[in-house]
């Protein structure tokens, strides 16, 4: 049987190439996604894990604020602590450091380099090389005021060299400094687009507002002492006010925090990998089922000649194994190409992934699992069926493989659909955001599976109805195309399914995106009474000097600073906004159900209605708040307002925020202009004032809304770019199926040509069939995606997406895209069909 297997493989080169291609595509998609995901995750992990200490000492926080605000608490450690720790038995070295966000290097044109949302971090340079997470590649360490070292990524992007003088924005003043050194951070040098600026300790302390305090103290253990021993010794020496952790503990904490903050990306990439796995497997499954079905007669001949059932099945499996191994190996290589392309794409959006691509063992495992296992499975099922066919029946000319009944699929699909719809409905109705999202996720998965199970059942009526147009417009060619699409509903459905999944996600995100945009518009329109907003593009904190300067501008009526923090309110952790009660009413519109802005004065607290309801609070109640610094305050509830996205669920006064150790950096500054002032003139003066701070932008309401929408648009663009990949793979799957259909129908094509079908008509026939299949996939995907999008939007209603918009025209355009995809996918198979020589085709077996 060996020889027949090998001969079989070689005899049909095109068939071999097509099935091999299916495996390569499927595996490449899976491995590319996984490589990229791992690289992304490694970049972030190494960014946070690159500490060189054995033990680290920081200020103890009262609780783990999951959404730790950058800059965190402003409570520094006293410098004296370093001496104290250094004296502890077992400590080889101890050095204090300062670290803060809000330090940006201006490029030569005086603008802040676009970091795509990654922070600009200022640090003090470690004098002890063994403690420093960074390594100098050029020049020397900064030693004095006016000297600075920059990370290599920033230097490259801005085109600076050692010796250049650069301008820096800091949370304090704007300074000029000479670049004395260039360094790489961590082991990979990766910063995920963030910029790192290093000063000597004294300069860092003064620029970052630390006085003579420290952010933390890093410790090296003496040889022979374990990290844990030193940790315990240091902890005993410094007391419970400080948190002492080993390197491993810090890494764990940071990884946990990272998982938290990246959970969205992780979930998305996981979904994407799932889609990849699914689409890849589907293409392989589809292709192999067709191949073995086509060979039924050949296999029957083998059986007639005396080969046993098991031998026939084994021969097919052997062939699949060889192909699967080859395909998976090539696919893994192609996956690198896909991952590289994704990296370039993400780089365009400012998310720079440094270092080499990460090839994890699990990626290799999954690649071969998909390539080999799926191929074997895909080959086994039809091979078993083929082996069961009585040899004589299969060798008869008019043998038609009997289609299995679709009843079981219908039943399974119906059950899944019911489960899916139930989950979606309850998800949309649930108040708790994360529960709702998981329910919607569960429902979506169930519905996708239901759609896959049911798609062969739905294919017939769909193709009948939609296909009714074809004969009317294209006559016989149209009818032949429709009949071809109808003749094997399983194949039509399987081919369409890959496209369906991709388009379902694209449609869902389209609905979510449109709803988010509409919500942003409503937020800006209804919640904002200020004329202008000043903020950085990505919500980074900036110096309060901006607000001070704006107050000086003539015609400005009110300036309100807004800061954010995290706290436990009567035991429940939440983020809060800190605002100025004096100017709140003139800049933001809060719709009070009880109390009012006056209630915010001093140690007042405002909460939104859902919070007041679930906590059972009413105006006048005392709420105890614990800040990450450990400070405790008793706040009096002074007002309850309707949910407002500008401030979130809790609002306290700036006064309280500052008193409890909040970082004195603003996130948003709202400016209201006198009603009788000339808006244009005031604006140009304000623009002048803000020009000194290139990190921040001055925006009017419309521009602010536009900026918010742009962020949504950028995110959607990234998501869609990833999804387009799945659509491309799906298109290649259609090409593959069509090409195989053409091979399968060679004799039919020969007959059609013999009785007078022209080449152009033949091409059109293949094209129309392709269009019918892909429009079917697109329509299913569109329907599913709209349902997902609507459910998810409903489920996220409490998280800021309050308005539901279903952009009909754009969704309808996807149907058109489906048709175009059909036309494109058919180009090659149609050409191949048209090229067949009539005589050869008639004579073919």
């Amino acid at each position, binding site marked *: 049987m060996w020889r027949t297997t090998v001969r079989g493989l070689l005899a049909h080169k095109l068939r071999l190439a097509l099935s091999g291609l299916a495996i390569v595509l499927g595996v490449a998609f899976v491995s590319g996604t996984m490589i990229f995901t791992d690289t992304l995750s490694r970049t972030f992990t190494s960014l946070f894990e690159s500490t060189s200490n054995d033990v680290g000492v920081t200020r103890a926080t009262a609780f783990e604020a999951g959404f730790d605000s950058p800059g965190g608490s402003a409570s520094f450690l006293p410098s004296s602590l370093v001496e104290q720790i250094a004296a502890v038995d077992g400590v080889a070295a101890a050095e204090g450091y300062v670290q803060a966000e809000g330090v940006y290097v201006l490029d030569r044109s005086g603008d802040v380099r676009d970091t795509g949302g990654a922070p600009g971090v200022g640090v003090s340079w470690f004098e002890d090389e063994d403690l420093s997470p960074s390594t100098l590649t050029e020049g020397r360490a900064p030693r004095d005021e006016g000297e600075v070292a920059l990370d290599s990524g920033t230097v490259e992007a801005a085109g600076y060299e050692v010796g250049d003088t650069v301008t820096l924005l800091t949370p304090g003043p704007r300074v000029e400094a000479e670049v004395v050194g260039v360094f790489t951070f961590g082991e990979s040098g990766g910063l995920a687009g963030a910029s790192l600026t290093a000063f000597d300790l004294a300069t860092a302390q003064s620029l970052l507002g630390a006085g003579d305090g420290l952010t933390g103290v890093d410790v090296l253990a003496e040889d022979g002492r374990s990290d844990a021993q030193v940790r315990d010794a240091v902890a005993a020496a410094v007391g419970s006010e400080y948190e002492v952790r080993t390197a491993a503990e810090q890494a764990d904490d940071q990884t946990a925090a990272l998982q938290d903050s990246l959970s969205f990306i992780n979930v998305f990439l996981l979904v994407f990998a799932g889609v990849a796995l699914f689409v890849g497997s589907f293409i392989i499954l589809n292709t192999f089922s067709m191949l073995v079905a086509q060979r039924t007669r050949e296999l029957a001949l083998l059986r007639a000649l005396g080969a046993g059932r098991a031998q026939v099945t084994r021969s097919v499996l052997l062939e699949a194994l060889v192909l699967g191994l080859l395909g998976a190996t090539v696919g893994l290589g192609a996956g690198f190409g896909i991952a590289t392309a994704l990296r370039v794409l993400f780089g365009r959006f400012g998310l720079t992934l440094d270092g080499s691509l990460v090839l994890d063992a699990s990626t290799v495992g999954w690649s071969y699992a998909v390539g080999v296992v799926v191929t074997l499975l895909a080959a086994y099922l039809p091979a078993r069926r083929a082996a069961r066919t009585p040899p004589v029946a299969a060798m008869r000319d008019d043998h038609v493989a009997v289609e299995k009944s679709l009843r079981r699929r219908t039943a399974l699909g119906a059950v899944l659909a019911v489960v899916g719809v139930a989950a979606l409905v309850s998800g949309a109705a649930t108040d708790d955001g994360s529960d709702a999202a998981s329910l919607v996720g569960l429902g979506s998965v169930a519905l996708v599976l239901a759609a896959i199970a049911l798609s062969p059942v739905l294919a017939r009526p769909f193709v009948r109805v939609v296909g009714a147009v074809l004969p009317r417009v294209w006559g016989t060619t149209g009818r032949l195309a429709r*009949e071809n699409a109808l*003749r094997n509903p399983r194949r039509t459905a399987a081919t369409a399914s890959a496209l369906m999944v991709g388009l379902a996600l694209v449609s869902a995100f389209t609905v979510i995106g449109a709803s988010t945009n509409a919500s942003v518009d409503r937020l800006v329109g209804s919640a904002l009474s200020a004329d202008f907003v000043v903020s950085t593009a990505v919500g980074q904190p900036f110096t309060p000097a901006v607000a001070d300067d704006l107050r000086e501008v003539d015609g400005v009526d009110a300036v309100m600073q807004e800061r954010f923090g995290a706290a436990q309110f009567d035991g429940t952790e939440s983020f809060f906004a800190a605002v100025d009660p004096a100017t709140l009413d003139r800049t933001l519109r809060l719709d009070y159900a009880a109390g009012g802005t006056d209630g915010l004065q001093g140690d007042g607290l405002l909460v939104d209605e859902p919070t007041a309801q679930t906590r059972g609070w009413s105006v006048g109640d005392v709420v105890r708040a614990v800040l990450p610094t450990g400070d405790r305050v008793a706040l009096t509830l002074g007002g309850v307002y309707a949910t407002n996205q500008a401030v979130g669920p809790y609002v306290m006064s700036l006064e309280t925020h500052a008193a409890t150790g909040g970082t004195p950096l603003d996130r948003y500054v709202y400016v209201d202009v006198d009603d009788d002032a000339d808006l244009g003139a005031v604006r140009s003066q304000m623009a002048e004032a803000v020009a000194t701070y290139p990190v921040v932008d001055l925006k009017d309401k419309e521009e602010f809304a536009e900026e918010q929408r742009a962020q949504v648009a950028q995110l959607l663009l990234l998501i869609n770019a990833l999804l387009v990949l799945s659509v491309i793979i799906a298109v290649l799957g259609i090409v593959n199926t069509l090409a195989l259909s053409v091979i399968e129908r060679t004799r039919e094509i020969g007959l059609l040509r*013999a009785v007078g079908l*022209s080449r152009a008509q033949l091409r059109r026939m293949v094209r129309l069939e392709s269009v019918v299949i892909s429009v079917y996939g697109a329509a299913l995907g569109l329907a599913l995606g709209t349902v997902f999008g609507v459910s998810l939007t409903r489920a996220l209603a409490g998280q800021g997406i309050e308005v539901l918009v279903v952009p009909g025209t754009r969704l309808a355009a996807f149907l058109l895209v489906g048709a175009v995809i059909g036309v494109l996918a058919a180009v090659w198979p149609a050409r191949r069909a048209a090229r067949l020589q009539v005589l050869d085709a*008639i004579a073919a077996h």
Partner: protein
Amino acid sequence: MIPSQQASHDGSAAGVPAARGLALSKVYGSGDTEVVALDGVDVTFPRGQFTAIMGPSGSGKSTLMHCMAGLDALTSGQAWIGDTELTGLDDKRLTRLRRDQVGFVFQAFNLLPTLTALENITLPMDIAGRTPDQQWLDRVVDAVGLRPRLGHRPSELSGGQQQRVACARALASRPDVVFADEPTGNLDSRSGAAVLGFLRMSVRELGQTVVMVTHDPAAASYAGRVLFLADGRIVDEMTSPTADRVLERMKAFDGVRTSVEP
């Protein structure tokens, strides 16, 4: 044998034969592997006649048919269907010629599985976007005796019924000539007889022209004339054949050719 119908779609060509070939030659391969399939064949298929082409395997009978029908290109020589010369026609014109002026019946796989019997019969005209001549279509369908089965798909028809549908399709557009390539090769003798009887009837009563390639003397006996091919040449001709006479003639080939037959 008076044709009851003018056989051609361009009624003026009464004197022109349905198809003819002059000095037809077809050579496959070159050098050592050169095979001469047709070696200067002159042939005429008059209108309203049923011609059978016979000969041992490799005699060139199928090649002759394919070249005459515009399915294969000649190495040299000229061929006409009606008054259309095939030589030099591009693919588009050849396709149109096959569609409008030629009918085909192959040994197997004559019908599209996705279309009903009737749709298969009218397929060439549907492709051309022409409405079939309903009266003619009715005559053909009745003659082939398949009226009750017109709505069935090929998979629901027996092999003999499928070949009869194929014959009806070949005749439905009233072509200049119908080429049948071993039309009964896959059928049992009763179904075969029905198909052959129908072909003969279409010539005698409907005035059609049929050229049939076969290796079965009994099938050939349905024709009005038999051409014998050997080594790419027409070596003999027989009118009003009977199965026995044809068999006798073929035996003569066997005697000559056994040594070269594979």
